[in-house]
């Protein structure tokens, strides 16, 4: 990896797509476009969700019963498919959040130098 951290948006890490969608829907029922926009804006363009992947994920989550979908009519009189969190989805969200937190803590332990270890990242060669 060369150079400083760029401002290019990061695409989703494997396994976090569903967590983020669940959390997004926990805020509010949205249609598909609304979800990607929400995530982009909340992370200030850092995280981007591949559109096709989003819809695939939504279908997966529908099949597992975490998400319910229904067609509705927007105020501009357009019909759109809206997604909402189900009770099962809420349970799943809690589970995934807890898993994520443990993961993050574990990673932090690796990255944080213990007493006596050299600090900082290895220099570029």
């Amino acid at each position, binding site marked *: 990896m060369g150079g400083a951290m760029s401002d290019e948006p990061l695409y989703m890490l494997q396994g976090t797509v569903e967590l983020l969608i669940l959390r997004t829907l926990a805020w*509010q*029922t*949205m*249609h*598909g*476009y609304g979800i990607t*926009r929400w995530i982009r804006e909340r992370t200030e363009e850092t995280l981007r969700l*591949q*559109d*096709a*992947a989003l*819809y*695939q994920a939504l*279908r997966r989550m*529908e*099949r597992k019963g975490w998400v*319910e*979908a*229904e*067609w*509705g*009519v*927007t*105020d501009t009189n*357009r*019909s*759109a*498919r*809206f997604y*909402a969190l189900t009770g099962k989805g809420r349970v799943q969200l809690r589970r995934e959040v807890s898993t994520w937190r443990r993961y993050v803590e574990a990673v932090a332990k690796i990255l944080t130098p213990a007493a006596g270890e050299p600090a900082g990242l290895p220099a570029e060669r």
Partner: protein
Amino acid sequence: MTPLPPGIRSLFRIPWRGRDRIRADVAEEIAFHLELRTKELVQRQGMAPDEARERARREFGDLDAAKRALSEADEEAQRSGRRTAWLRDLRRDLAFAFRSLRRRPVFAIIVAATLALGIGGTTAVFSVVKAVLIESLPYEQADQLVRVYQYDVDRPEEDGFVAGPHFHAARENIDSFQDLAGLYTYAERGADLTVAGQPERVRVLPVASGYFRVLRQEPVRGRTFTRDEERGEPLAVISERLAARLGEADAGRSIELDGERYSVVGVIPGSFEDPVVGRVDVWTPLDLYGGGAQEPENTFLSVIARLAPDASVDRARQELSALDRALAKEYPEADNLRFRVVELQEDLVASARPTLLLFLGAIVLVLLIAAVNVANLMLVRSLERGREMAVRAALGAGGGRIARQLLTESVVLAAAGGLAGVGLAVFGIDALLAFGQDAIPRTAQVGLDGPVLGFAAALTLATGIGCGFAPALRVARTSPASTLRTSAGGSSDSRRQARVRGALVASQVGLALMLLVGASVLATSVYRLSRVDLGVRVDDVLTFELNLPESQYDASARAAFHREMTERLERLPGVSAVGATSRLPATGTYHPWGTTALSGPRAGTDDASASTQQRVVDGAYFDALDVPLLDGRWFDTRDGPNDPPVAVLSESAAEALFPGAPAVGQRIAAGPFEREVIGVVGDIALDPEGRPAAHVYHAHAQIADNRNWPLQYVVAARTDARALIPTVRAEIANVDPQLVMHETETLDEVLGRGRIERRFAFVLTSAFAGLALILAVLGLYGMLTYTVRQRTREIGIRIALGAEPRRVAAMIVGQGLRVTAAGLGLGTLGALALGRVLSSLVFRTQPADPLILAGVVGGLTLIALGVALLPAYRAMRVPPRLALAVDRT
């Protein structure tokens, strides 16, 4: 319901979408997404619309792949969703059905029991029909098997046995047959097999060498007979069952039959059954070359054959008829014989077919009546639950949903009935077989196997749906609002219900009428059959057969034995007369030889011969059976082996051979035997139906050297025939302790066997008819009772307004009679149609006999009147104020 975001109203989408619809929806969702992204790019980043659109598309990813993947996912989701939804609904319907049935256990039990009878009965009869009529015979390629008969051109409707020379000719010359074999079924041959010192009765079947080849049955051990052994060689092929009983040591060696030794050459699997005769224990080789076997007039063989692979029955027929012509030229004395060939399966079952189909029809009628009863019950109950259903409907269950629930309930009830019915069918089958053993062929294959159970399941499902159909349909059509508004029992809806129920009951009455007419016709037929005059005394006559082993008795010993035996038995207390005969009276044709008048008016002319039944008799045969002596005398001590040979004729034989002249003193040639006629006796019928036949009687002592005649004894008792058995047995043992009394029966039992088919049909149809009558009566009673309940208010008002209670009662009775009349009308038409089916089973009775029909119609009308009385009485007693106060909930 999904909470949509605020400001968004719900859009109804059809739950079940076709593939195109699914694809369109996916495209729409994606298009919406792209549109919004495009708008965002234009507004936020100031892009040109086209550029923005392009960018949005690129960002999305592979559009086509995404559309495809999402469409597939949606289709799959819909499929599995439908499956789970269906299962979920089914579970819910079942739970609902069980709950509501548990609340009304009596109703559920009555319905299940009614259906159990109908389904069980139908299943039992079907299992017999399937095994006997439908399934092919248990032999390899059974459709190639045929039966060959010979008949007399003068009597073409009687299939008879085949003569020796003709059999040989057919075997050599008919190419259509790949194998041909004869079997001796003329007289039932049993023999006493000595097993470990004890005599045991076994069934013996003498057969030609090709027998096992025709039936494609390989022996389990050893071999079968060869052509050279068709001289009555003392060999035997035994059944595995017998071999097991004999133990390994004996099976390979020899057995003792009637005192003679036979070498066992082969063993046949125990499951094998002869098609004509059934269970056989021992097969022996026929004698196809000795004495009588070469006589062209001596017909004695039953013949079965297997068609060649490319041959047909018609071709065989043609070949046989060509052979007929050739044989007539070669054996002019037997030129009246013709061959007849028929498929073996058809031959065996044709006689049982009408009876079995009658049963199937009858039990299906009973099932229909039962189903109508159940449908009626369900309809009534659905009316009572009208409120419950209406509330459910108002709370959101669609009419279709409720209808499905009712159907589920009905199918559950039917399933309960079906299970119980299959249990009943087990007993039913046992009863059918036990009772109809002699009337139904091929009973070994009857059982509750896979296809029969499948039939029962299908029948149960059909019955469940059929019975639940009417109430389900009604519920699906009614709007909940109207039901909630009015109280049950109001206006036109209930009038239509009443008409439907009336129609159902009328149909029950009609069906019951048909069954009752059928049963009555059969009953009349059985009664008339039992009153046929057979020409002999039937009551209190004991019969049994005595077989003298040739190794111990020669001709003169046999003559002496039988003469002595008849005299000794006659001296026993309780015995009035004793005789013996080669064949019991009215048990069918036996030894029909051509007899020629050698003197008298017809002698020397072409009309001199007649076919007559030959019988060998001893002792006081005619006396024991109350056969009148019309002229001349009976046999007595003057007719010994060295005395002039004599014969006694029956009345019709005398008439046929010597018309207009006294027969006594004339001479005849019965087959090869020249005799002088010494007496004429009354006619004896040929079969239990009373068909007449000419008989010629020979004295045993004078014909004992011709063959070892097994004689059937007839012992006329003063009181009870069966009580004599021990004394008779003791007396026989006094003369020869080795002898065994075979087939000890009373004469009426023997003759009853011949009528078994009709009696069987009668008893079963009567049982069905009785059942149908009970069900129809219940149906009628239920309908009238319900009517009274429903119209209680109306009745109360009428009475309050001054109508006489009697008028009200008359109204109820009138309703009952109207429905009954409609049913009787329909039923009469049905009974007339049924008449044609019955015609082959009835004896001297017209199936559409108007007297019987009128009688049954009258009887049912009276019953209907009686049934209507109780509800009518109740209607009369309704106190007006009670009626007015009732509001049904």
